[in-house]
């Protein structure tokens, strides 16, 4: 019985996938009930899978199993680690579940505050250590003579490219206008003429980057379309 079911699972899965693909591609005609049904099924399945994954990964293997093992083995260190690392988090998590109730929603705010504070500190450290320092250093090393190629023909290209990247990085940052004073309403912001030209140049670099990004997104979606057409064709071939 189970073997029979497992044998049929693949074709049934293919049929389901085929039907869902057609339902979603029907959006090309316009928004319709088939498309919305397919999306509802997708959201339900994805949410259900995520919920079970959390229950397994966190509730079961990080909360319940460690404490059971610590109790069964009798290791005090494990219990102490559990008491400091896991148990307060579980209690805070249960406290945070009060956010589900409109009446008790304000009670869960301190837990969110803790989460926000820790997250803010983490991203600050990561941005400084992982992006600002290395990327500024990389921009400074663009025209580092030690990394220059030895051939003259390549040296010219290396220098020009490095200069363009450096100018582009700086002008892009100028376009973001960090440090401009807040202007009163109705009073136009006055900037230096040179800064305006540099800002325009930065805008050009940003436009090129966005164009490359747009092309990349389109390529990814085009490949997805190709994949679906391939799947449909393979399904038709497989069914018939």
């Amino acid at each position, binding site marked *: 019985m189970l073997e029979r079911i497992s044998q049929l699972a693949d074709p049934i899965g293919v049929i389901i996938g085929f039907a869902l693909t057609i339902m979603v591609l029907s959006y090309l005609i316009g928004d319709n009930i088939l498309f919305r049904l397919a999306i509802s099924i997708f959201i339900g399945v994805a949410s259900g*899978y995520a919920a079970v994954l959390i229950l397994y990964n966190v509730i079961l293997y990080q909360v319940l199993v460690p404490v059971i093992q610590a109790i069964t083995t009798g290791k005090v260190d494990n219990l102490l680690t559990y008491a400091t690392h896991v148990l307060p988090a579980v209690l805070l998590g249960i406290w945070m579940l009060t956010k589900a109730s409109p009446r008790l929603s304000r009670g869960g705010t301190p837990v969110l505050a803790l989460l926000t504070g820790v997250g803010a500190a983490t991203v600050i450290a990561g941005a400084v250590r992982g992006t600002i320092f290395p990327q500024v250093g990389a921009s400074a090393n663009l025209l580092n003579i030690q990394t220059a190629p030895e051939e003259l023909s390549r040296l010219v290209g290396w220098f020009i490219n490095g200069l363009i990247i450096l100018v582009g990085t700086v002008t892009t940052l100028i376009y973001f206008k960090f440090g401009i004073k807040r202007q009163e309403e109705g009073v136009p912001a006055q900037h230096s003429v040179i800064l305006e030209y540099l800002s325009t140049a930065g805008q*050009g670099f940003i436009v090129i980057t966005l164009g490359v990004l747009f092309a990349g997104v389109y390529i990814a979606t085009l490949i997805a379309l190709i994949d679906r057409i391939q799947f449909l064709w393979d399904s038709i071939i497989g069914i018939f």
Partner: protein
Amino acid sequence: MKKILPTSNAIIAVISGLLVLLGYFFPGVFGNIQSILIGWSIILAAFALLLGIFNLAFVHWKKTKAGGAGGINSIVLLVSLGITIILVSLSGPTGALSLWIFNSFQVPVEISLLAVLAVVLVYAAARLLTRRPKWYTVLFLVTVLIVLLGSVPLFFLGEVAPLVALRGWLAQVPAVAGARGLLLGVALGTVATGIRILMGVDRPYGG
């Protein structure tokens, strides 16, 4: 009471953030408390995800009870949610049944949504010059065309070397410059926002 709660929430956010930040500078002194707080936050994030899924189910449950045009969609969502939870719980997240559900339902829909997006994007690019074109609009369109033409040998023309070279230069020089500026700008903004939160000026948690 109305003023004490927001202030206490801000104090909690500031103190916890400062302890984690100090753990980066002084790992010997604040390393333990930093790892404890991060461990708590990971588990709390899992509870937050559970809370979000519960809220989703509750909202659609209310929609189902209220009836109306969107009622049937909500019913389908709740049914699929329930069945998935039951089957995946029985099979395990990496069990055969779970993988079958994932590959039969989730993967086809996700890829199909991306495929529809391809048609929408090319339609948008074709209509880009409908409004009064400005210099950056034309530059954007030219860049897109060069990258597309240089990414693959064209079917009737084959590989056009200048286009490939230009595409390579665009992606490696001006695009990197702009991307680096964007990354630095995003990082600076992130730092500014994080400092505002650690100073208690911004309170996104609703305090």
